[in-house]
């Protein structure tokens, strides 16, 4: 009887040991398999939508989880070594936001993993969905505006989106200031002035009010100077060489001081610019 028990326990122990060995072996093999075989595809929402029936929300969660697991901590490696990285990221986030168009995590990822990885246009496409569905949230317009400003250098479009963002609840006041500054880069002074005056009416924040007033004053100077340059051009058939020429012909008494302590400069196309770029001194 005793001998039989020993045999059974020995067999059991052997099984456990083999299992442990096999487990580690399997783990290693599996890791190798995963490294060799990227699961770098996400089925489009035209398929996942109907197939997930009434479980679209949880499917979106699952796909986002899969996306996070895929990226893991190797975003940098993937960006450099893996050519399909932008396609996979875009397809995944596009499918997820189709399944659940209110899912902020996915939109945030599009900014983090697309825009900051050299694909701002693709990020903007996804963020446009957020702008449509989260119409009361300032962040989608802010991110699109930021991408246009920082990555695409399209200041006019950036200014438009940032202005839109700054009118939405919860938007920090400096976004409005940035929008106005960008309107200067794109020479939309009047838009900037009107926009800031509107913002000034709606804010009680002292810092914000001071900032807005400074910007409005600067924009008004820029607008006034450009008007005078146009008058000069109408009178003399050419643009002045420097702004001081306007004082010489008595179109203005003196060149106004830039509230940001910069200097107003006349450019060859007749536009006026400030060296301060409306940045705090």
């Amino acid at each position, binding site marked *: 009887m005793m001998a039989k028990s020993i045999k059974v326990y020995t067999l059991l122990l052997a099984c456990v040991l083999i299992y442990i060995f096999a487990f580690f072996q399997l783990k290693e093999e599996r890791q190798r398999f995963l490294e060799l075989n990227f699961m770098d595809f996400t089925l489009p929402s*035209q398929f996942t*939508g*109907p197939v997930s*029936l*009434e*479980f*679209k*929300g*949880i499917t*979106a*969660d699952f796909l*986002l*989880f899969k996306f*996070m697991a895929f990226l893991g901590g190797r975003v940098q490696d993937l960006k450099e070594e893996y050519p399909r990285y932008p396609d996979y990221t875009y397809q995944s986030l596009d499918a997820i936001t189709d399944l*659940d168009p*209110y*899912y*902020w*995590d996915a939109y*945030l990822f599009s900014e983090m993993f697309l825009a900051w990885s050299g694909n701002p246009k693709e990020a903007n496409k996804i963020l446009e969905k957020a702008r449509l569905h989260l119409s009361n949230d300032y962040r989608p317009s802010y991110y699109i505006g930021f991408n246009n400003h920082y990555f695409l250098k399209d200041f006019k479009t950036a200014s438009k989106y940032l202005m839109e963002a700054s009118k939405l609840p919860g938007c920090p006041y400096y976004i409005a200031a940035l929008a106005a500054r960008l309107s200067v880069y794109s020479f939309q002074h009047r838009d900037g002035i009107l926009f800031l005056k509107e913002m000034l009416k709606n804010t009680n924040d002292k810092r914000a009010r001071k900032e807005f007033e400074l910007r409005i004053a600067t924009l008004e100077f820029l607008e006034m100077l450009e008007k005078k340059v146009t008058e000069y051009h109408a009178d003399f058939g050419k643009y002045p060489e420097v702004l001081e020429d306007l004082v010489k012909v008595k179109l203005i008494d003196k060149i106004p001081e830039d509230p940001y302590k910069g200097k107003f400069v006349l450019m060859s196309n007749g536009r006026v610019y400030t060296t301060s770029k409306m940045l705090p001194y």
Partner: protein
Amino acid sequence: MNRIFALSWLTFKEGIRDRALMGICIIALVMLFATIVFTGVFGYDLGKVLVDLNLSTIAFAGLLLTFFVNINLMAKDIDKRTIYCVLSKPLSRTEYILGKYLGLILLVCIALFFLLVFSSGIIAIVKSMYSEIFFKNFSWYCFFQAYFYQMLMFFILNAVVIFFSSVSTSSFLVLLFTIATYITGQTIEEVMVFFKKEALGQNTSAVNHWVIDIAQYIFPNFSAFDIKTLASHGKFLPLEHTTALVGYSLIYTILLLFFASMIFNKREIT
């Protein structure tokens, strides 16, 4: 009326005794517990993930219950020939259909209510584990509204079970037809939208349009009852919407039960 209630109570008691019910409840409870771990994996919208997981678990349990317990409860009467005992009593076939339906609904309501209570507890625990900032859009009202809509869907789905049970004696066929109806009901809206979008600028046959239009009137639109995504983002639907769906669910159920009783009255039970 008393006879209907007595039969529904009997059906409910029979359902409670089914071991599959216990299994489904245990799976659902484990899934609900798992939400505590899974929610923490996500970065920002924790409230959304939490509501998604909980409502989906409740819906999944309800579907398992309907497909595997309720269909069996209907088929058992004929398989075990207990239907002869029931119908030999002073009970009309229409009363039999109504009693059975109410019994199935009672079973689903009580099982899912139990899961709802448990799920609410889990949500309260998870909410207390993380900062409020992650639950900005969370709303109990929306959560309960989505649950209520889910129940309205199960009222129709169980009427579908009764309808197919009155047509067919095979529980496998009833299961097949019910699942097919459920899938059609969940996807018909998307198919329609897709079809109409795809058809833009193309010459599609008028027959196709006609078939799709007819299908949307015949099949129940189950996707209308799925507001889980909206609920997870704290979007509350107005009372008019709820009233319209309550009306839709009631009328569709009454029509199905009417046709079921009509067919069942003419059926030879051998």
